């Protein structure tokens, strides 16, 4: 029996077209726009000026406060301007625009490809280096990694969980990273174990990636305290709480953090970034992005510099097909639809997904037939059929009593609804309002 989480879940068509296409380097764009807020928490503060010459990897903005993150130049060249740019959510946010000239890296980065296995630093030094490198959760949540590694007083981390699940359909960036940089990821896990002072790490990989499971098992056997788990394919297994449940059987309490059950979890992409930051002195300025879609001519995985316009990624994969109706940053279940393909790639951009116009439109909503499918697929044990009308009627007290804040916004309810009701749209709306009410109440 393969492990999985028990409650709810769905199995949409996987459509992983780019799974075995490898990772290619995307040619440098003419200019990049590096957002100052690519992470959860306060935006970083710019420390460069218009007209400055910067090198690849140079610090251009520093994290403000504890929950924030440094931002580095992803290319070398001249700072064209510091101005607003449309980000993936459609808002205008401040960014540093750099006109690319050559590709001159800062001298401290070790650019060779040799594997650096030896760990010389102490746990504290590792966390400091991760903080300096501006590493955030690359699975999509973009929570600053150094904050996660600083376990709150009174709590104790017992094990590390590495997320190689990639449960979103279409996306293959984590899969291809495991295949190409498996051993680097294993060393990264050793670094994180040292930083957290935990003896054991679990890697969770869904069973639709047998090659990655075999490879990681082989590599892990050479190191102590790393266990690879093959998991049954089920969305949203890559959700932190679901993955912890699947591997350890423990449930993160409502409103709690994984460390409450002794677990700290990281995505494989984050682990690779940790390896590069600590062993190669390389700040986080590039990542693997999947570019895919049924109509796209060459689905691929690219190593992309942060700040590259998404249109450049699409063009490298054969260009935007004529009948494209929707461009999504991220996966089809949780990704954000873009209003403009010129939006820059951010640290959390795991993929770009194109839908033909036929697939992009929503179907008309019908009355709820109370089939209870939304209740049975909800991985958090909520009742979407009930939450939607409560949100429509602004019944915030009842929404809170019905645990709306536990919703992880995985979209399983909307996906499964035979009446095509936009359940998650309204739940999200209710959740954001209830969240604001709770914060206000805490302040009083």
């Amino acid at each position, binding site marked *: 029996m393969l492990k999985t989480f028990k409650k709810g879940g769905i199995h949409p068509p996987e459509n992983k077209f780019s799974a075995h296409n490898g990772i290619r380097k995307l040619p440098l764009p003419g200019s990049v726009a590096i957002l100052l807020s690519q992470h959860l928490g306060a935006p970083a503060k710019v420390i460069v000026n218009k007209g400055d010459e910067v090198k690849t990897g140079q610090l251009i903005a520093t994290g403000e406060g504890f929950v924030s993150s440094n931002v580095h130049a992803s290319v070398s060249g001249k700072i064209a301007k510091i101005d607003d740019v449309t980000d993936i959510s*459609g808002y205008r946010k401040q960014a540093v625009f750099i006109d690319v000239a050559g590709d001159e890296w800062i001298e401290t980065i070790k650019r060779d490809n040799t594997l650096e296995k030896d760990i010389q630093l102490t746990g504290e030094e590792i966390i400091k280096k991760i903080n300096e490198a501006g590493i955030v959760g690359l699975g999509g949540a973009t929570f600053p990694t150094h904050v996660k590694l600083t376990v709150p007083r009174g709590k104790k981390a017992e094990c590390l969980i590495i997320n190689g699940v990639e449960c979103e359909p279409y996306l293959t960036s984590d899969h291809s990273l495991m295949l190409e940089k498996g051993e680097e990821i294993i060393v990264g896990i050793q670094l994180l174990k040292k930083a957290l002072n935990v003896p054991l790490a679990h890697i969770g990989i869904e069973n639709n990636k047998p090659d990655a499971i075999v490879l990681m098992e082989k590599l892990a056997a050479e190191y102590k305290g790393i266990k690879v788990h093959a998991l049954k394919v089920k969305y949203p297994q890559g959700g932190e709480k679901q993955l912890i449940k699947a591997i350890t059987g423990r449930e993160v309490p409502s409103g709690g953090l994984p460390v*409450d059950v002794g677990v700290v979890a990281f995505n494989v992409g984050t682990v690779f970034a940790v390896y590069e930051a600590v062993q190669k002195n390389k700040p986080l300025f590039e990542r693997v992005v999947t570019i895919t879609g049924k109509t796209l001519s060459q689905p691929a995985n690219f190593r992309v510099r942060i700040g590259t316009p998404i249109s450049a990624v699409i063009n490298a994969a054969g260009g935007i097909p004529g009948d494209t109706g929707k*461009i*999504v940053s991220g996966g*089809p279940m949780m990704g954000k*639809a873009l209003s403009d393909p010129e939006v820059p790639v951010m640290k959390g951009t795991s993929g770009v997904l194109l839908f033909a116009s036929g697939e992009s439109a929503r179907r008309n909503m019908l009355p709820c*037939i109370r089939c*209870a499918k939304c209740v049975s697929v909800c991985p958090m044990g909520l009742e979407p059929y009930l939450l939607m009308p409560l949100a429509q009627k602004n019944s915030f007290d009842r929404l809170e009593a019905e645990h709306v804040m536990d919703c992880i916004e995985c979209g399983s309810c909307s996906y499964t609804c035979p009446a*095509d009701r936009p359940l998650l749209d309204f739940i999200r709306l209710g959740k954001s309002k209830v969240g604001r009410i709770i914060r206000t109440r805490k302040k009083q």
Partner: protein
Amino acid sequence: MSNLLTVSPSPHIASEQSVSKMMYGVIISLVPAFLITLYVFGLGALVVTVISILSCVLAEMVIQQFILKTRISIGDGSAMVTGLLLAFNLPSNLPWWMVALGALFAIGIGKMTYGGLGNNPFNPALVGRVFLLISFPVQMTSWPLPVASRLQYVDAATGATPLGFLKEAVRGGVTVPEAMNQLPDHMQLFMGQMGGSLGEVSAVALIIGFFWLLYKRIITWHIPVSMIATIFIFTGILWLADPSKNASPVFHILTGGIMLGAIYMATDLVTSPMTKTGMFIYAVGIGLITVIIRVYGAYPEGVSFAILIMNAFVPLINKYIKPRRFGEEVKHG
């Protein structure tokens, strides 16, 4: 790029399941039962089914067009399902105008007064059936003989259902084992050779339909299995206590409307609970009430009443029976 991009919140994909696919799935699952009923009741079954479906669809169309003045939604298949299930709950010799009246009541009062699909608290087909049963008790309880009278419609020769026969026999002082000798054996009951409503007679055809519904993920097993198990256990206890007065549990689940009720009527999506625990409570309630009516009540059969009574409890069940929330109790495993 010439055309504009769609910007909508996630998720960006949806399952292939739809309301109409589910409704037509129910209709397809009823094909085996319909074929058997054509064999057993012949002409009458065909006429009643056609009249019932046409009346339900027409009633919904007329009400939406002229009274509610809304979009006509007969295409979703739900009125057809109601019509088909209503017909399956009627005797095959019922005059056509009674069938039409029952269909009008089922759709008009049972469904549209509450706001149409998804809003009705009671199963519309059963509302129609119970309306007819109370209004026309004689016609609703005269059952054409199986197979023998399949070329007649309203003039078909009639006899008692096995349950009705048994009830009368026990009242008349005959013991159950004696009465059983005059009834079809279990195999005949299983295949559908008995008197009764036109869709309820063949357990085997209904079970085939059940597996189709499970395969197509239209219903889950919880309600039918818990309901049949409850009836089996309850009647089993009674049978073990006094086999001369009570029929065996196998006889109970193979006769009357248990199979049709458990698989098709109690599982009506709109009028059944939303959580698995709620479904269990609801199904056990239906089972208990059914047996109480059958054994102690005036009617030989009580599935329809039991389902309607438990329908009334569904909002209460949904209010108090909640799914187990993730992270509700912290477990260290």
